[in-house]
C-alpha cells in the first residue's frame, strides 16, 4: 500500500480509509471564465462508515459524488487524486484508470444511486433485463446474481418477482428508488454513493428508505456516502457529516458533534433554517443571501458575504481546517466565538409547551351551523386497462363526511395520492362528487348548479363564497394584466354597486394590508415584476375580495422558501380573522399543517387512500395520535433530537396499495403494524368519543371490540377474495 503523507484534512479522523481524496477540483471552461465547481477538496472516507454530505443546491455536492467514480461529465475536468484502497490493501488512483478498468471499477467496487432515480431505468426494458444485463456486462454468474437480486429486493420491502417483471413506469417513485438501490448493490460493491436518493418522495417514504439503508448497510457491509440538502435526514443516518459550502467542505466531524456543537457559522445557519415538528416554527430563519457563483467565488473565506461574523481578516485570508477536537474540523477563523454570535434555535423538549390558540377551537360549539358539509362524498375516477379488462375505478375520495364551521381552519394531510386534493376540490365545488353530497349552508351545491329542487342559495353566490388559492401562483394570474387589473375584475363582477373610487380604495387598502407597500406602486406592476411570495399574496387578495366564506389553499405555500412560508401562513391567519373566512389547508407537510392549525385553534385531518382516518385538534393529533397511520406520519416528520434513532419503520409494508384495488376491511391493514385478522375483514368507521373533537377510524380506539380477541395478522397478504363486511 502506497503511503500518502501529505494528509492535511481529516486523516486523523480515519483509521482505515477506503477513499483518500486529495486536492480534487472540477473545472469547466466557460466564456465568463473558469467555473470551479469543486475546489481543492481533501477528505478521507472510512471503510464501513456512512458519511453524510450536506449542502445547498449548487454547492458542488453532486460533483463530489461524480468525482468519486471519475464520472464527471465532459467538458468538466477532474484534477487531483482520488485514491481508492481495496480491502486487501491495494491502492489505485481512480482518476488514472483506463476506460476498461474504469468500467470494471464502477459497479463492482463503487456504485452510485442517482438523484433522478425516476429516470434511471430504460423505459422500454423490464426491470429484470436491467439486472441481467448488468451481471452480463461484468461477466458475473447470472443465476447467482439474480438470487442476490431477489434477496436485495425483498430486504428493501419489495416483492422480487413482481418488481422484476415490471416495466419501470409501472413502479411508484419509492419502489423505483429502492429497486435502484438493489441494482446498485447487485455486484457486491464496497462503496455506494447516493446522491439525493430520496428527494421528491413523501416524508414517510424518505424515512422508510433511510431506515432500510441503515439495515442493508449492516447486512451487506458497505461504505455509504449519502449526499443531500436535507440535514435532518442525515441526523439519524450518518456516522459522520461533511458540510459543503461553495464547492468545499467547511466542516467535517462526527454527526453528534456537528449537531450538538456546530462550529461553522454556515452549519449553524443551516440548522436554524431546518423545519422541525416539535420546535416552534417562528424560530425558523432562512439563510440570507445566495450561494456563490462558481466562476466568481469570494476571496478569503467564501462564506464572508453571508456571514454575520465576518471581519476583514475573513475577506483577506482563506481559513484552513481548525481542529475543535480530534474528530471535528472546521474552516472558520472564529469558530470559538460562534456559540455566542449565532445562537442555535432552542431544541425540542424545552419548547414543547403548546401555544394557547389565539381564537380557541371553533369546532366545539355544536350550536353553530357548518359553512360547508360533505356528506358521504365519493369521487371515483375510471381508468381502463388492457383489451377486455373491466374498467377500474380509482376511489380518490371514498365516503367522506366532514363539517367545516364558520372561521375554522382545517388542514388535510396525507401522502401523495391519498386524495386530499380531490377532496379539497370537491369541497369547493370544482369537482362533482360521484356519490354523496356537498352542501353550502344547507344548500346542495350541485342541485343549485343544475337547478334541482328549491334552490335557496343561488349557484352564483355559492361560487363566490368558495374560493381557491393554487400551489403555483404564477399560473393562476394572467401575466399580461397589471395587479390592479387582475384585482378589479372580481370586484366588478361580484360587487357592481361599488364605483371606481371605492374599488380603487379597496384594492390599494388590501395591498397595504398584505404588506405590499407602497400600494400604488405595486398596483401597476405586472406579475413578472413580483416575487413568488408577492404573487401568492395577490392571489390571496383576489380570493378575499370575493368575500368568501371558505378558501381552499391547495399546497399554497409549498413552492415558497422556508422563511416565506411562515410569513404567508401568518398573513393568511390575520386576514382570516379580519374577513371571517374558513380555510381548508392542504399540505403534505406536517410541520406547516401544525403551524397554521395551532395558531388558529383549527383541526388536522389525516387522509389515507380516499378516507379520513383521524381528525382532531393539533394537540390531539400531534401529541396524542391514535391511528397507527397518523403515528407513522408523526414518526416520519424530521426532528433533530434523534430520539427515534433505533426505532424501526412503524409499518409492515412501506408502499401504498393500488388505489384501484384498495385493501379489504381497514384500508391500512396491509401496512399497519397493529393489524389483526379482524382488520382485514371489517371496516372501522370514523368515531369520536363523546362530544370530543377527536375522531379516529381504528378498532384499537374501540374498547371491547372483537379486534382485541382476534389473532395477529400474518405477514402474507390476505387473498383478494376476503369478504368485506361493512
Amino acid at each position, binding site marked *: 500500500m502506497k503511503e500518502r503523507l501529505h494528509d492535511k484534512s481529516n486523516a486523523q479522523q480515519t483509521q482505515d480509509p477506503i477513499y483518500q481524496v486529495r486536492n480534487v477540483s472540477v473545472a469547466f471552461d466557460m466564456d465568463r471564465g473558469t467555473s470551479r465547481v469543486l475546489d481543492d477538496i481533501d477528505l478521507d472516507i472510512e471503510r464501513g462508515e456512512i458519511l453524510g454530505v450536506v449542502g445547498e443546491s449548487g454547492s458542488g455536492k453532486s460533483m463530489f459524488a461524480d468525482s468519486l467514480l471519475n464520472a464527471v461529465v465532459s467538458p468538466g475536468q477532474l484534477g487531483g487524486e482520488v485514491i481508492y484502497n481495496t480491502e486487501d490493501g491495494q491502492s489505485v488512483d481512480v482518476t488514472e484508470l483506463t476506460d476498461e478498468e474504469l468500467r470494471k471499477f464502477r459497479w463492482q467496487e463503487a456504485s452510485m444511486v*442517482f438523484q433522478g432515480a425516476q429516470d434511471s431505468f430504460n423505459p*422500454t426494458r423490464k426491470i429484470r433485463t436491467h439486472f441481467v444485463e448488468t451481471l452480463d456486462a461484468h461477466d458475473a454468474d447470472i443465476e447467482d446474481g439474480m438470487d442476490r437480486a431477489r434477496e436485495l429486493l425483498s430486504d428493501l420491502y419489495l416483492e422480487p418477482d413482481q418488481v422484476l417483471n415490471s416495466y419501470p413506469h409501472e413502479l411508484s417513485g419509492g419502489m423505483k428508488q429502492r429497486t435502484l438501490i438493489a441494482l446498485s448493490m447487485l455486484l457486491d460493491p464496497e462503496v455506494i454513493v447516493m446522491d439525493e436518493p430520496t428527494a421528491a418522495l413523501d416524508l414517510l417514504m424518505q424515512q422508510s428508505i433511510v431506515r432500510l439503508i441503515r439495515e442493508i448497510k449492516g447486512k451487506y457491509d458497505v461504505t455509504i456516502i449519502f449526499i443531500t440538502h436535507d440535514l435532518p435526514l442525515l441526523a439519524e443516518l450518518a456516522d459522520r457529516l461533511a458540510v459543503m459550502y461553495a464547492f468545499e467542505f467547511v466542516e467535517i466531524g462526527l454527526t453528534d458533534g456537528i449537531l450538538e456543537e456546530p462550529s461553522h457559522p454556515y452549519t449553524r445557519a443551516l440548522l436554524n433554517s431546518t423545519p422541525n415538528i416539535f420546535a416552534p416554527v417562528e424560530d425558523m430563519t432562512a439563510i440570507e443571501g445566495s450561494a456563490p457563483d462558481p466562476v466568481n467565488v469570494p476571496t478569503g473565506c467564501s462564506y464572508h458575504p453571508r456571514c454575520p461574523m465576518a471581519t476583514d481578516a475573513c475577506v483577506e485570508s482563506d481559513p484552513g481546517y481548525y481542529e475543535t477536537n480530534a474528530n471535528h474540523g472546521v474552516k472558520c477563523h472564529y469558530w470559538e466565538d460562534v456559540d455566542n454570535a449565532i445562537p442555535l434555535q432552542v431544541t425540542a423538549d424545552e419548547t414543547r409547551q403548546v401555544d394557547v390558540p389565539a381564537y380557541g377551537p371553533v369546532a366545539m360549539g355544536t350550536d353553530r351551523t357548518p359553512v360547508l358539509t360533505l356528506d358521504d362524498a365519493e369521487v371515483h375516477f375510471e381508468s381502463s386497462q388492457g383489451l377486455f379488462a373491466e374498467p377500474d375505478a380509482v376511489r380518490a375520495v371514498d365516503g367522506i363526511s366532514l363539517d367545516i364551521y364558520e372561521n375554522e381552519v382545517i388542514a388535510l394531510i396525507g401522502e401523495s395520492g391519498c386524495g386530499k386534493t380531490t377532496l379539497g376540490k370537491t369541497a369547493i365545488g370544482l369537482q362533482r362528487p360521484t356519490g354523496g353530497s356537498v352542501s353550502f349552508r344547507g344548500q346542495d351545491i350541485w342541485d343549485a348548479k343544475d337547478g334541482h329542487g328549491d334552490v335557496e342559495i343561488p349557484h352564483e353566490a355559492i361560487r363566490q363564497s368558495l374560493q381557491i388559492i393554487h400551489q403555483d401562483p404564477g399560473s393562476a394570474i394572467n401575466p399580461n394584466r397589471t395587479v390592479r387589473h387582475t384585482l378589479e375584475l372580481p370586484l366588478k363582477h361580484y360587487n357592481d354597486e361599488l364605483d371606481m373610487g371605492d374599488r380603487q380604495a379597496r384594492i390599494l387598502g388590501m395591498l397595504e394590508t398584505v404588506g405590499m407597500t407602497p400600494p400604488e406602486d405595486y398596483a401597476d406592476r405586472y406579475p413578472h415584476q413580483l416575487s413568488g411570495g408577492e404573487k401568492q399574496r395577490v392571489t390571496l387578495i383576489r380570493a378575499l375580495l370575493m368575500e368568501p366564506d371558505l378558501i381552499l389553499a391547495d399546497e399554497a405555500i409549498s413552492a415558497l422558501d422556508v422563511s416565506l412560508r411562515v410569513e404567508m401562513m401568518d398573513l393568511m391567519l390575520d386576514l382570516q380573522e379580519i374577513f371571517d373566512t374558513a380555510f381548508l389547508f392542504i399540505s403534505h407537510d406536517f410541520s406547516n399543517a401544525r403551524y397554521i392549525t395551532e395558531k388558529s385553534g383549527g383541526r388536522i385531518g389525516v387522509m389515507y387512500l380516499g378516507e379520513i382516518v383521524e381528525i382532531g385538534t393539533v394537540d390531539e393529533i400531534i401529541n396524542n395520535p391514535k391511528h397507527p397511520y397518523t403515528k407513522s406520519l408523526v414518526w416520519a416528520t424530521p426532528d433533530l433530537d434523534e430520539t427515534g434513532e433505533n426505532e424501526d419503520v412503524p409499518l409492515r409494508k412501506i408502499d401504498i396499495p393500488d388505489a384501484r384495488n384498495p385493501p379489504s376491511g381497514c384500508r391500512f391493514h396491509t401496512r399497519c403494524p397493529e393489524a389483526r385478522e379482524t382488520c382485514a375483514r371489517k371496516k372501522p368507521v370514523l368515531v369520536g368519543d363523546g362530544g370530543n373533537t377527536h375522531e379516529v377510524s381504528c378498532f384499537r380506539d374501540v374498547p371491547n371490540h372483537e379486534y382485541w380477541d382476534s389473532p395477529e395478522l400474518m405477514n402474507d397478504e390476505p387473498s383478494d377474495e376476503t369478504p368485506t363486511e361493512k
Partner: protein
Amino acid sequence: MNWYIRRTLQALLTVYGVITFTFVLIRIMPGGPMESMRAQLIQQHQGSLTTEDMERINRIVETRVNIDPDQPLYTQYVDYVSSVLTGDLGQSTWHQAPVMDLLIERLPWTIFLMGSSITLSFALGITLGAIMAYKEGTILDVGLSSYSTFMTSVPYYVVAVLLVYFLGYQWDYFPIQGRMAPQTTPGLNYPFLAGVAYHLVLPVISVVITGMGGRALAMRGNSVRVMGDDFIRVARLRGLKPRTIAIQYVGRNALLPMYTNLMLAVGFMFGGAIILEEIFGYRGLGQLMYSSIGNRDLPLMMGCFLLITMTVVIALFIADLTYGKLDPRVQSGERHESF
C-alpha cells in the same frame, strides 16, 4: 369504454364517413360528377335525344357510379354503400372496365415502388441520424446536418426531373420510363426481375435522396435528446457495453417517435405516387389516378380517392394499435394517438 373498442369504432366510422362523402359528392352536389357524366354522354351522343336515349344514358351512368337516380335517395344510398363495401366501385368510363380490377392490377407495382422508397429512406435516414448524433458537434455532423437540411427543402420531383434528364436522356444509363423491361414475362424469372429493379432505380433514388434528410434530422434530434437522459448515464456507470447502450438504450428509445412517422408515410404512399409515377411514366396507381383526371374518368377518380383515404385511415389505425407494443408506457393507448 374500452380504448381498443373505441379506437376500432372510430376507424370504422371514418371509413363509413369517407364512403358517404363520396356518395354525397356524386349524387347530391349540383353539377357534381353524376351531372357532368350525364352531360358528357349527351354530348357524345350525336343528334337529338329520344326518351329511350335518355333512359339508356341514365342506365349507363347508373352502372358506372353505382347509383340509380330513379330510386328514392335512401335506397340509392344503401345500394351505393353496400356495393362499395362488397368491392364494387363501378365502371371506368375511359377503360371500360371495372374500377376495382384496374386498381388491383396497378396496386402491386405502386406498393413495390413506394415500399422500397420508404424503406430505404427510413433505413438510411435513421442510420445517418444515429451517426450524426454520436458525432454531435464534429465536422461530419455539421456537414451532414446542413446537407440534410438542404435536401429536405428540395422537392422530390425536381430531383426526379433532373435525374431523368441527365441519367436518362443525356447519358442513357437508366430507362427513362416504364416499369419493366420489354419482352420479359412477369413471373419469377431473372430477366423480368432485373428489368423491374432497373426501372425502379431512378424513381426510388429521387424519393430517397430528398426524403432521407428529414428522417436523419429527426433521428439525430431524438438520439441527442435520449443521450441526455439519466438512464443513459446510469447505464454507462453500470458498465454496460457501448454497443448495448447504443442499440438498446439510445436507438430503441430514439426510434419510438419515428414509428408514427413511418406509418404516416405508409398511409400517404398512394397520394405521393401520383406525380412521381407520372414523371417516370411508371404504370402504377399514381399514374392511373393522374390519367383519370385528364380523362375525366369520374368513377375511377372516385375509386382512387376511396383507396387513398382508406390507406391513410388503416395505416393510422395500425399505428395506434401497435404503438403500445413498442412503448410499454403506452399500454392502452390512452395517452397516445397519432391524430
